């Protein structure tokens, strides 16, 4: 890094393929890329619709019928009905949108997030109070660091 130019890549665009390629190397993480945003568009817009009280009522009355109003894949619909959040992330869901589903269920972020870790809520909460999950070994799949 020179005194003149604080960032090496500030002079031009970075390689988009290299940029996106690195995202798959992070353990247990689905980065919300354009590809996922496209795949999950209707799933996320469905979730967004639950911000309105009248929609929440209709959703609670008949989840399946409400889902059938949206052009989502059957797999996405099954993922929502099962509240399988890891599956929904794989199918293009974004956590801030999916939050409308678990908020409607009356779950906090802590409760809902713990379901994705395979840990019991008490164990997850205890881990957080003890300082959270260590980044050791969680940074890179390829480099085992």
């Amino acid at each position, binding site marked *: *890094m*020179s*005194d*003149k*130019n*604080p*960032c*090496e890549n*500030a*002079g031009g665009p970075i390689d988009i393929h290299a*940029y996106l390629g*690195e*995202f798959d190397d*992070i*353990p*247990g*993480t*689905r*980065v*919300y*890329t*354009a590809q996922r*945003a496209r795949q999950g568009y209707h799933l*996320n*817009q469905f*979730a*967004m619709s*639950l*911000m*309105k009280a009248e929609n*929440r009522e209709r959703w609670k009355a008949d989840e399946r019928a409400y889902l059938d109003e949206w052009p989502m894949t059957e797999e996405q619909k099954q993922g929502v009905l099962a509240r399988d*959040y*890891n599956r929904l*992330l794989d199918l293009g869901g*974004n*956590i*801030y*949108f999916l*939050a*409308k589903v678990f*908020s*409607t269920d009356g779950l*906090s*972020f*802590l409760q809902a*997030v*713990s379901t*994705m*870790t395979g840990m019991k809520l008490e164990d997850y909460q205890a*881990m*957080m*109070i003890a*300082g*959270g*999950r*260590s*980044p050791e070994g*969680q*940074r*890179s799949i390829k480099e085992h660091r």
Partner: protein
Amino acid sequence: MARITHGIACSHIPALGVASDFDKWEDPYWKPIQQGFAPTQKWEAENLPDVVILVYNDHASAFDMKIIPTFAIGCGESYKPADEGWGPREVPDVEGHPDLAWHIAQSLILDEFDMTIINEMDVDHGLTVPLSMVFGKPAKWPVKVIPLAVNVVTYPPPSGNRCWALGEAIARAVESFPEDLNVQVWGTGGMSHQLQGPRAGLINAEWDNMFLDKLSGDTQELRCIPHIEYLRETGSEGIEMVMWLIMRGALGKETRELLRFYHVPASNTAVGHIVLEPVNGDVPPSATVEGAATQEQII
């Protein structure tokens, strides 16, 4: 002439809003956080600005997937707290400063930052939680607020370098506003956290404290951190910290730290907070990275 007096960075964890709204600060889980912010509340009351430019991200509240602005500035008269799925927070409406906001919006666009302009929107916890942490529970917020929303949800978010440069452009815009106003810039979100997938719960106190350290002084190292480093080191949602760099860029060449607080956890997240004062508030004359062209060439 308007001037930037200070910068504040603050996590905007929704659970902090719940703790404030339902008076949970005496609870042993929340007490350390209340104590951590008490010096800031006192300091802010003694150093109250007229306007806060509040950099935050919307969490699928005002914006859905239909439109994703990278940088958006609120030029409206006022903003209501958003209903995020459990009813709106019972906090005061947020009063804007349309004169300064429109001045900044125009200045930024002329300075080659292609802003999205928002006249009407609701504001979610990203904006209202920092207000609660710094001002407590007043009947009316004691400052006017210009919301500046950044996309940090759909990749790619803006680079740290671009955020820093936007901060510098905001400083130029504020300095050219003729009215005598004290302005603070707040950067919100972070610190390390991951809300999704099997790696959820990741916290990196060492990295977070490195980040806090390098906000002071004259180093510009933080603007060069690539997205992948935030993702690997600070969890998938740690990327929110690029928003702190808009605040830091707006404070100019050199800063000093007045107050700092760091605590793990609140809910899934590391709470980070810092108050900075400009020592040398100079910013380069254009969005060109400083030194890439000489001042004479730019003019």
